């Protein structure tokens, strides 16, 4: 097992005692964050004599490692030397995961095909070309429930369009017409919509890009992943029930 260090100059030496505890590790960070984040957790890693420090920043969680003496800070990713498992990435994904049940699906535009067993929720902007591609690809899958959370963040036009879709009689059709066929929604954007609340919600999760999506496991991903990549993830997160 090794620490693979990806950045030169990432070491910081603080003259502290030879054998540290969590409080000492905490002190390494305190006073240096200057409002850019807060310490969320400090704990020993299960795979070596290091502490993991998670800083909650506006962009989401950031992982640091600190040696057992609290004298060296390591910025980088830890891999299992044998299996190549990326410990840091696994932790990062756990840290950015949400509880599926906590997602505001009452604000979603939901469509179901087949038995609907595979579930995905997507923060999607109507003017994001990759959202169009991703949703278009997902539309070719059977046995799936797709929850579109209209995340109108790319510009004022997006907000207006998303609200008009929400105010349409058939939201699924109005959304697909807009996103896939560039047919503008005809409804007036003047009903009670969750569009502004969703923009706030997404920002609170640090979702600074679209599409950002969640599997039933709560794991979070960004970007228009290919169907070949996303299909096994969907199957894994939403296994067939017997």
């Amino acid at each position, binding site marked *: 097992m090794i620490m693979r260090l990806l950045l030169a100059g990432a070491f910081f030496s603080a003259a502290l005692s030879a054998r540290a505890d969590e409080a000492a590790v905490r002190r390494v960070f305190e006073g240096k964050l*200057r409002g850019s984040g807060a310490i969320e957790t400090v704990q020993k890693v299960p795979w070596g004599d290091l502490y993991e420090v998670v800083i909650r920043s506006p962009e989401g969680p950031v992982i640091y490692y600190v040696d057992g003496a609290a004298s060296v800070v390591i910025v980088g990713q830890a891999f299992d030397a044998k299996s190549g498992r990326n410990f840091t990435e696994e932790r990062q994904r756990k840290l950015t995961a949400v509880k599926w049940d906590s997602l505001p699906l009452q604000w979603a535009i939901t469509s179901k095909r087949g038995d609907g067993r595979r579930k995905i929720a997507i923060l999607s902007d109507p003017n994001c070309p*990759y959202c169009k591609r991703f949703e278009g690809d997902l539309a070719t899958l059977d046995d799936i429930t797709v929850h579109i959370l209209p995340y109108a963040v790319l510009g004022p036009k997006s907000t207006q369009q998303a609200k008009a879709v929400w105010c349409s009689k058939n939201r699924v059709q109005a959304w697909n017409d807009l996103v896939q066929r560039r047919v503008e929604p005809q409804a007036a954007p003047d009903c009670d919509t969750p569009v502004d609340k969703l923009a706030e919600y997404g920002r609170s999760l640090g979702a600074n890009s679209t599409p950002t999506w969640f599997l039933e496991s709560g794991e979070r991903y960004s970007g228009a992943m290919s169907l070949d990549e996303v299909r096994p993830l969907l199957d894994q997160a939403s296994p067939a029930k017997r």
Partner: protein
Amino acid sequence: MSRWILAAALLAVAVEVSAVNPAELLDPQDAFRISARALDAHTAVLEFRIATGYYLYRDRFRFETEAGKIIANAELPSGKVKEDPFFGRIETYRDYVRIKVPLSDANIAQKRMRLKVISQGCADIGVCYIPQEQWVEVKLDNASRRESP
């Protein structure tokens, strides 16, 4: 801020991308690095260094003064034009873009300009970022020193 705090923000740069996930995607401020300086007594220059595989939309730039007034006469160079059957005519910048912003009389009097720059871009791996707001400050003393060594 400590250098290692910054280093962690840059961490994603060094990670090999195999699939897209939040841990691997660059933060917008790292994908689109901004800097500003005075060009001459009347003009400031903004430069964006854009990471490979990332791009900015020309028509999404906006510039505001500290008081929130929109600066309409910034000079944006032509971008790479794509006629998209879906989204229409799209002009984008890759790698590097240099934008000239005229200084106001107030800027010149105060020998400084503070500017809010709003930009929006995407990454080829399949995401678009929400618009990014960045503040830049240009001190005009440096420019005059540079002009008259």
